[in-house]
């Protein structure tokens, strides 16, 4: 059995989820010392969580093959620019919904003398685009049924394939409309920062196969009444993988909006190993208690990087009192101590997933 600080064996698959912090991140070892990073986050020390972890394993950044930005919201891209800058051998993948000029204009305009303390997803993306244009390396744009990475079978090494299952064309169109609205708002009104959209039709769902082990990363994809969008579009796609995944990164932080029961019946093995991070911002943190009950009923192997609950902010009692008097509610949006959940298994499937967790991560039961 591999030790926590030992890198995985060449024939092992590893799925490690970090968060929540400034962002969340999934790190996948796809065998043969090759790594894929999906999204990005800053840990409690203020450094890139995936780079910190890889460094502690003695893994060099040159072993990162792909960096996938599954969408541009600020809870998924913390430290992305630094990661892209460091991992010069990696290709950047982002949603095809971000290819049109509208996204480039939004990102460009948003950074003009923002005079705000916090940067948002678009600010991070601006730095990413600057970095890529310096290198004259273009991003790979992910859309439904696109192969993003493939390692053929050869003697002594397992086959690996990374496929994006979304966004569908209809979802990309949706996303484009949303970008146009944001751009109009930037143009028409007094300077605002780009707000975090409530929905994310541009989300990139990934299917990763290493040997006979399959992993489904659900990103923030939600269900949609239009069968050409959301999870229905993924499930009904002709070229959807017919195998079943044994690991599922639960979509949309376990919310009911991200839950399509057919994902569980048609795409996942029985009792899959599931990982998720909570989303603690906004009026109602997710997953809610009802979401957790639903997840636990679907599998006994649910791991969360931090139990949702109202994080408290330690502060002067006078400030606390006054803040509560002024607002309807107020709560911390970024907890201290994020958690890590790591799963490892041999790519020939001859053993079961071994789970290791640290920080605030916990098993839901």
């Amino acid at each position: 059995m591999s030790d926590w600080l030992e890198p995985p064996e060449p024939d092992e698959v590893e799925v490690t989820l970090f968060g929540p912090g400034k962002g969340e991140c999934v790190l996948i070892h796809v065998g043969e010392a090759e790594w894929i990073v999906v999204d990005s986050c800053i840990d409690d020390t203020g450094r890139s969580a995936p780079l910190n972890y890889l460094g502690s394993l003695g893994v060099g950044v040159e072993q990162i093959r792909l960096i996938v930005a599954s969408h541009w919201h600020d809870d998924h891209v913390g430290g992305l620019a630094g990661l892209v800058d460091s991992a010069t051998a990696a290709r950047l993948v982002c949603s095809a919904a971000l290819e049109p000029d509208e996204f480039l204009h939004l990102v460009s305009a948003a950074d003009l003398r923002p005079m705000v303390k916090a940067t948002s997803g678009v600010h991070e993306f601006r730095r990413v685009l600057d970095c890529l244009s310096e290198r004259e390396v273009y991003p790979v744009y992910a859309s439904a049924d696109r192969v993003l990475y493939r390692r053929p079978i050869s003697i002594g090494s397992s086959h690996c394939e990374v496929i994006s299952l979304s966004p569908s064309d209809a979802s990309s169109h949706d996303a484009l409309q949303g970008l146009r609205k944001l751009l109009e708002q930037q143009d028409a009104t007094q300077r605002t920062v780009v707000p975090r959209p409530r929905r994310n039709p541009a989300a990139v769902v990934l299917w990763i196969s290493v040997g006979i082990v399959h992993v489904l990363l659900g990103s923030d994809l939600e269900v949609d009444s239009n069968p050409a969008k959301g999870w229905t579009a993924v499930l009904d796609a002709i070229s959807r993988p017919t195998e079943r995944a044994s690991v599922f990164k639960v979509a949309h932080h376990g919310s009911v909006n991200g839950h399509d029961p057919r994902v569980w019946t048609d795409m996942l093995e029985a009792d899959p190993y599931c990982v998720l991070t909570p989303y603690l911002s906004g009026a109602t943190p997710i997953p809610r208690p009802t979401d957790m009950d639903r997840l636990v009923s679907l599998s006994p192997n649910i791991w969360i990087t931090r139990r949702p609950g109202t994080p408290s902010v330690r502060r002067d009692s006078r400030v606390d009192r006054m803040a509560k008097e002024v607002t309807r509610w107020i709560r911390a949006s970024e907890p201290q101590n994020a958690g890590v959940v790591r799963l490892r298994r041999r790519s020939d499937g001859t053993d079961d997933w071994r789970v290791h967790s640290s920080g605030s991560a916990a098993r839901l039961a």
Partner: protein
Amino acid sequence: MSVTSAETVDFGHANTVWYLNREQILGGDRHPLAFPERPGSHGYYWHYVDDALSHSSDATPTAHELRPIDVSLDAWRTERSAAQVRRVIGPIVQPPMPKIDRSIVLQRWEGRVDYLTDGGFVARLMDLTGTGADEDAEFPLDEISPMDRPLVQEGAVFYWSVGYRDSASGQRTRESVVRFRRLPHWSKADRQEADRRVARWKERLTRP
């Protein structure tokens, strides 16, 4: 420096004297002549206008035209004839520190409106005082000044501070101030810069 109040004092040389208000002296980047070279009695400090410069009696001397008097005014005056001394500026009076309202801010945040709710909005708050973590909160519109309510929209930036205000008379009140950010619209130059950046990206990032 400019003069807000003028008073003529006869020193026996038909000179005009200006009193400079201390608040004007404490305007920020301090001009060296605003601070006296030599303290006189009762905190008075003396400067004079170079008599080579011509001024009408109503003209306001500019800061660089003032020169400090290195010795007491009487000693200085006796060394010069009346003709040389066109004008004496002084004293620069130091009145007692004025009693002004004072704010004691306990915490400041910068806020970004995420979305609107019924009669309010939800915002992400970023701590500006280094005393706490970032937070989310819902604000009722009642807490927003009427003049700022048209600015409440998704993506709008605002500043929020809580603390106390001590009035000049010593009355303490609690204070919560929300003020929405006002910046000019993007200029034509801004848009052109944004377009140029996009053109650069497209040139280098287009699929081959």
